[in-house]
């Protein structure tokens, strides 16, 4: 009885996993096609579309910009998130709830609206360079993800630990760095990963700010509008690589610290 139900659950589970993984497998298959058609299963094996990426200056430039934005906005949003988190969890001030809501609001406001709002605001301010405008946008978009995780990590860390460190001779800054930071480290790593991924994959809002340069997801989308060879599939497959690394990192580091803590 129990065994049969178990088997049923297993089948359901594997089916779900297969449905999730299938498009990625097809993508990988398509990317190694020798011909110009995007077909699956591939009619042979070739890495020519991967090699072709080197000739696509648009992709190379977009990749550079995307990584720059992802790293930059991660640093900014984790730093700001940490400072905001300290303010929110450690101090009482007027309009505290308002600040928290403002920081988290990009989570709720539709990306289309955020993108549009940035477009009209930045162009009316005369800021029409993609790098600057995208940098601001990505910091705003990633901040709520980082802040949320950091605020809850800080809220969970006991205040008396810092006070104990102070009573033993540590200045408040020292106490924070030597006691609280190690405790919230998993939260900081999670916040950084969330921020990085959020920036890296952002399409909806970023496409509003295409003036002179653009990001990888937008560039990829523009490419498949006009071309149909497997270059885009090859690029997408390459993007999977760092994502897989991040997922493994996330699982082994965060999973261990966050969920198996006694």
């Amino acid at each position: 009885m129990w065994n049969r139900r178990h088997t049923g659950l297993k089948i359901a589970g594997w089916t779900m996993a297969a449905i999730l993984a299938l498009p990625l497998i097809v993508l990988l298959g398509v990317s190694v096609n020798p011909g110009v058609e995007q077909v699956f299963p591939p009619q042979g094996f070739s890495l020519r579309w991967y090699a072709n990426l080197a000739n696509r200056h648009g992709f190379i430039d977009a990749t550079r910009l995307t990584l720059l934005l992802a790293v930059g906005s991660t640093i900014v949003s984790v730093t700001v998130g940490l400072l905001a988190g300290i303010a929110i969890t450690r101090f009482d001030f007027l309009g505290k709830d308002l600040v928290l809501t403002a920081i988290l609001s990009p989570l709720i406001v539709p990306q289309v609206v955020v993108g549009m709002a940035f477009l009209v605001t930045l162009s009316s301010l005369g800021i029409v360079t993609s790098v600057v405008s995208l940098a601001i946008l990505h910091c705003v978009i990633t901040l709520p993800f980082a802040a949320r995780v950091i605020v809850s990590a800080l809220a969970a860390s006991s205040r008396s630990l810092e006070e104990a460190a102070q009573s033993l001779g540590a200045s408040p800054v020292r106490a924070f760095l030597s006691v609280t930071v190690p405790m919230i480290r998993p939260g900081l790593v999670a916040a950084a990963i969330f921020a990085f991924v959020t920036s890296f994959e952002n399409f909806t809002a970023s496409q509003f700010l295409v003036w002179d340069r653009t990001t990888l997801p937008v560039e990829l989308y523009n490419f498949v509008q006009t071309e149909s060879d497997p270059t885009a599939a090859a690029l997408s497959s390459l993007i999977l690589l760092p994502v897989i690394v991040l997922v493994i990192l996330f699982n082994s580091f965060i999973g261990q610290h966050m969920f198996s803590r006694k």
Partner: protein
Amino acid sequence: MAVVELRDISANYGNNRVLSSVSLVLAQGEFVAVLGPSGCGKTTLLRVVAGFVEHTGSVSIAGRPCEGVPPHKRKIGIVFQDYALFPHRTVAENIGFGLRLRKLPRAEIAVKVDGLLTLLQLRGLADRYPSELSGGQRQRVAIARALAVDPQVLLLDEPLSALDKKLREEMQVELRQLQQRVGITTMFVTHDQEEALALADKIVVMDRGRIRQEGPPAGVYVRPRNRFVANFIGKSNIFEGRAAGRDGEDLICTIADRYGMKIRSEGDPQLPGAKIDFLVRPERIRLRPVSGTPAGEGEIPGTVRHVVYLGAHQNVHIALETGQVIEAEASHEHTWQPGDAVAIGWRPEDALLLIED
């Protein structure tokens, strides 16, 4: 010599006044228990000494005024209610934390940590993490960590409340012995009156942000000055009456305008008709069955409500004819039954006049 001197301390949380002009002195080596119900301001007072709370009035530690001195420069040791051990550091690292901050040579730290491990019976646990320790061990690590930096004063915030009853009693004895051996001035915050009576050289009873009475445990127990202290420390039957005159060294007081009772009261003259509050401890109430003789002079009649058997003695709850319900501790010489008619009384010297509200 005064190690800690608090003068006229007041503090607010928002619009709430949590401390109102509290003054307190801790002498060298003294063990002071600050006792009171939750919300009376006792923990806030401890945090004032530590420097974590904004306040008015002055604090000085070892003769040095603390105004503007941050907690990390105050030479204090604190043991928190939740112990606040650093979870990602071992027992030895926790104890050595303050020593490393002081940049002592590594060998010196090792010697000191080793000594504390021995003193607190933590040998063999040096490399454990706090999550691998029992409640009593955690508490000992917290004390060792606080003592490591040779503080001027040790502040203990309900350190025994997280332990079960048996361990708590063991730790009380241990804590007291340790404190005497180290000779450190200690301020101990607790809501447990037995703990305070058992441990302290001096008890400070607080209520609603004020000190209501301070003194040695026996003094506070035997001579409570007001209703609050009388009720909070030990059990009390509090009577209200009016002064009716004197009989030698006793004050005669009428209760419910009918029963004339005597209270020992040297000196303080009470105007006839003045309102008088006094208390009689349950163990000092005398009980007499009223079978033939009705309640006489110096007695108040009543009826037994119920009896609680407590092994060594029994607690008899009595509804007096004045309407008041009192509690008396009785031996097993007589078996009391609900409904029994009784007369209560006391020796004049067992009635304690409350001199404040």
